[in-house]
């Protein structure tokens, strides 16, 4: 049974409206093979989409793109502030409480500031921000792009010789490249504040000592690595969402599937990339 899964880059348009149909098979090896090839193809297309979006970045200087980018910064960033504030504060509070309880056994609870700050900067800040944005902004982008594909709006843009990657992907990419590190930094501040409140009220750690330890133990490298992670997570979220949205077929069901796949793939990518960066800088 010949299965046409290897086809040229020319055929592999990033925005495809020519779905490939494969005959059903009960052979698990064929199914596995198709899934692996499909995953590689998706990853390749996502990278191509990213490359094309980066090539379009200079057009962000035009008035319309600038306005759209600022709008996307507001939609993706500012509107996520509430949920990030709540999640980051409680994460900091939990971190402080858990580490503080253990450290109190050794009389070292005064150092919870350092523990919370380092954890938030290195891992929890970018990680939580990434997950929240993947679930809220990523899913929303995928649903919007998917609906635009289904209702032929993307085709209309292409026929007007308006590059959908420049018009739709690039402003979102730039917005998230800026907003994700900023939100990550903000979540770190909120986490440290939350931890400080718990330290003060539950563990009798003075605010000044808490902040002093937090600042003393944190290094520039922690901040840099955290921001780097957040920056990459922003790219992952937008490219995954746009790629999945553009690949939507089968109407409303397809839009739902694209949204679901965006969240799952963004979560997995964030975890894997987060680990790899930690491994790169701290081992």
């Amino acid at each position, binding site marked *: 049974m010949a299965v046409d899964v290897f086809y040229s880059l*020319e055929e592999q348009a990033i925005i495809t*409206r020519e779905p490939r149909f494969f005959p059903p098979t009960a052979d698990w090896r064929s199914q596995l093979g198709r899934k692996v090839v499909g995953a590689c193809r998706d990853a390749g297309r996502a990278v191509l989409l990213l490359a094309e979006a980066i090539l379009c970045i200079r057009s962000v200087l035009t008035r319309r793109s600038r306005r759209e980018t600022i709008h996307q910064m507001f939609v993706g960033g500012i509107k996520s502030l509430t949920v990030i504030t709540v999640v980051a504060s409680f994460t900091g509070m939990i971190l402080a409480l858990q580490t503080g309880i253990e450290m109190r056994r050794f009389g070292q609870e005064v150092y919870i500031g350092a523990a919370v700050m380092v954890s938030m900067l290195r891992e929890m800040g970018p990680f939580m921000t990434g997950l929240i944005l993947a679930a809220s902004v990523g899913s929303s982008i995928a649903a919007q792009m998917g609906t635009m594909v289904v209702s*032929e*709006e993307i085709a*209309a843009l292409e*026929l007007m*010789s308006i590059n959908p990657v420049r018009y739709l992907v690039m402003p979102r990419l730039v917005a998230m490249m800026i907003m994700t590190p900023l939100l990550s930094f903000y979540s770190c501040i909120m986490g440290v504040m939350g931890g400080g409140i718990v330290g003060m009220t539950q563990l009798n750690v003075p605010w000044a000592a808490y902040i002093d330890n937090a600042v003393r133990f944190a290094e520039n490298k922690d901040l840099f690595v955290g921001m780097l992670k957040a920056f990459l997570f922003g790219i992952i979220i937008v490219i995954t969402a746009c790629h999945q949205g553009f690949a939507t077929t089968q109407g409303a069901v397809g839009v739902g599937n694209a949204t679901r796949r965006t969240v799952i793939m963004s979560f997995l990518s964030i975890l894997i990339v987060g680990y790899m960066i930690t491994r790169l800088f701290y081992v």
Partner: protein
Amino acid sequence: MIQLENVTKRLGARNVLDGVNLEVRKGETLVIVGPSGTGKSVTLKHMVRLMTPDEGRVVVDGQVVSEASGRGLELIRDKFGVLFQSGALLEWLSVAENVALPLREKTKLSNDEIMSKVVEKLAMVGLENDAEKFPAEISGGMRKRVGLARAIVTNPEIILYDEPTSGLDPVSSRMIDRLIEHLRKELGVTSVVVTHDLHSALSIGTRIAMLTQGKIIELAEPAEFVKSQVEEVQLFLEAQFITVRGEWEKNGK
């Protein structure tokens, strides 16, 4: 102007287009009719390379569109205006901004010049008073008319219409028909119209093609089309209560 040469397109196990040969002549309005799911919209999509044939080729003004890419494809597409079935309007832009979009993105016209063209085209489709509304605030028929205004705002040489009158009230349908006629007669625009509405097809078409099971089974001028002996054509005509009593004549021709 447009030639489809032996175009075959498979979707799944089915040949949606099965060796279609079709020529669209400059300045004519070719109407493609046929039952649902026989490949009418797919044929239109091949003309602007939203789809690529598995076999055969599509030629527009001597350029092979089915093999074009990048800037070459853009230049070919610039000759076209396309009205999609749903209108394909961007939801976050107002009616006026939707119509202005191709001018804003592709030309260096001033805002005043763009808006004057937008108002003119909106007036042509009877929506000059709805310019500030958003797509969510207007009916399906109005969306389609906005889509038409957007398709013609750049004064393209060729306009493709995918079901231009479906979902429209009879008065709006006839207005769209008149507009298609006007564009052909006054401006020499070449049009390809996909429709189920034979009344509309007979009224606006200079030639009518019947597409069934991926093949063109009839291609004739309206007066000949209604007399066709092809069974599917007769069924199609009868289903829309069109019968030939003596000589069928098209008004105004």
